[in-house]
């Protein structure tokens, strides 16, 4: 899986590209864990380039949220496309995870 990585203020922004599914989910989770471990637990996952997400992808996001929170930070998602918003809704995950419209919105307050 390809990632684009940049920093924005105190936050790291990670933009995976393509499908976030059972095949790529472990890589995304590993990448975020790595960022958290390297001392930047404030992460925005920019989903604008993610074309498809399945429940394993969502599982990776939740796992990442857990690592980030336990390191005193947070993992926020931004710019989710239609399909991603649909799965968030289907699983009710939007009750927990706030889908921010833009990366700017997501990193507000940091």
């Amino acid at each position, binding site marked *: 899986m390809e990632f684009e990585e940049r920093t924005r203020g105190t936050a790291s922004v990670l933009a995976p590209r393509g499908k976030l599914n059972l095949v790529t989910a472990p890589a995304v989770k590993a990448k975020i864990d790595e960022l958290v471990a390297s001392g930047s637990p404030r992460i925005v996952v920019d989903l604008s380039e993610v074309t498809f997400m*399945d429940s394993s992808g969502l*599982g990776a996001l939740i796992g990442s949220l*857990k690592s980030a929170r336990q390191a005193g930070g947070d993992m926020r998602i931004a710019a989710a496309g239609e399909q991603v918003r649909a799965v968030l809704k289907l699983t009710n995950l939007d009750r*927990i995870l*706030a889908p921010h419209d833009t990366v700017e919105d997501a990193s507000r307050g940091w």
Partner: protein
Amino acid sequence: MESRGSEAARQMSAGRLMVIRIVAALSLAAGTAYLVWRWGWSLNPEYLWIAVPLVVAETYALIDGFLFAITIWRMKVRGPAPAPPEGATVDVFITTYNEPVDLVARTAQAAKAIDWSHKTWILDDGARPEVEALARELEVGYITRSAAWQGKSRHAKAGNLNNALFQTDGEFLLILDADQIPEPEILRRMLGWFDDPEVALVQSPQWFSNVEESDPLGSQAPLFYGPVQQGKDGWNAAFFCGSNAVLRREALMQLGIIGYVRETERTVRNALKVSQQLLAKTEKSLARSGEHTVKRAVGRLRRAAAKSLARIDAGEPVQLVSWDFQRVVDDTSRDLVASDLAAIQADLIALSELRGGEQVAEAIDEEAVRELAQLEWSPLAAVERVSTLVRAVDVDRSSEALPVMPVSSLSVTEDMETCMLLHSHGWKSVYHHEILAKGLAPEDLGTMLKQRLRWAQGTMQVLLTRNPLTLKGLQIGQRLSYFATMWSYLTGFAAIIFLAAPILYLTTGVMPVLAWGTTFLSFFIPYFLLNQLLFALVGYGVKTWRGQQYTLALFPVWIKALVTAANNVWFGRPLDFAVTEKRRGTGSSRFPFQLIWPQLAFMAALALATVTGLSLLFIPGAADNTLGEPLTPLGVGVNTAWVIYDLIVLSVIVRAALYRVPEVEPITGTEEKEH
């Protein structure tokens, strides 16, 4: 076994199904007529204390009959599966805890030899170096619990599977118990059903290779892995039975996500509620004190908790709300530390040690709310309490090793529970009627009884925690399919009455019915015969008698299961409370009286009662002092027949107790215990 269902076989089964339906309808009609007569015209008003229990037990049995008829009404006899989805990726999971290494080795070898592209994994919950070495030697994957599980609840087999799910990536998962040796074609035969994107589960039968023809321990379940599963399949309710099944990862994961959302919201909401009540109480008690810093802090926290709760109720994502709440808590504790509170800190440490630290955060529920609100807390202790609660106001599900747990673990039968939840979210399941893996059944009475007890306990836990009649999302046929299985486990109470009633009559003349006359026989006999005929038709070609015997003969197990499960669900008592220990090895030459004394006692009483009854009938004047009515020849006849039936049924347990496997070495391991 009619596995490769040709067109001819299906045609025949359509005809057979029609006959079964007709006999089922007739049997239920006869049963209903009998019960209407029993309730309306037959109860003996002199002995209602036995008349009513008996008629209730008979009503229970009739309802069981209705549920059975509903189950088989739409029996689905499937043929072979369509072609497997091309390129489907599969992980084969072999779950083990303490089974012998050579047993695991055999299964792993067979799994590796499955002729569809897959990865094989040994999920070793025992974390044994020799199993790890075996995996390396066979070049299969080896998974043990990750570091995240340390100090956390392990959730037995469900935990083992969930742990592995997050370390693998196949689209489908074949689950095998350590003793279930798969055939090479298992995946090719089963995967095709996933053609339908809504299918989450395909279950194949469990069949045991170490069971002799007469099956003294009733290990094979040909009625269940046959007509019953096919019947449930007809209602899209085929059960997941823990092994020899293929699951769709996406379906499980989705279930896990939904569960995570539900649990997180519940935990956070409850933690906030407890905090709020606790803080409000503290604020009140602080009203007249001079501790301004503390007073301010408590007030601020209480308002933050109230506001957070309101935001969640208004639909704001928990992530945002918990983040903001944690910031307020952080700021507040900074303020507290800033003001010189060294002495107070010391108090706090002493207090938290005294009260057992973090226990509160783990048990946040309605009860905890009440309990906490009732206690008299000092203001400082309250602040300390809240700061432990704050940890629960988070989205990381910190009390669990994994935030997302796809395989459910509220009960000890994670398979049934997970399956029911899958169905409730609209997924489909398939029963594939072809033996594709062969396992090992328990080989002694003690182990068998323990296994049955745990199945029954798990089923009752599921019934009591997630009632299928009310669980949201299930269709009516699915509700009845799950309920039928649960209902059948209540049979223990009915059995006691069926065993006691003839004893009472034959020894004391106490009659639950007004007369054991021709009216009784003309209502009862058609019902009884039609019922037996139905069983014979449904179980045509398979041996159902063993199963029927054990249904009655294991009555102490069913009763114990219900009592322990109710104690567990309602009072939090562990399930293992007073569970019989496994006896194999030490007492294998002795007759296991302690395991089956209730059955033996009833058998002795039944035999003695018959002798007594006949004596009372034939010795002139002997019946003068009986409690009830004088015995009649017809009454004694009916009850003696009843006794003989009971004795034949119960005799299976004696046979099982006498049964010895030729070899000494135990093959099957005990399952992992938790609760």
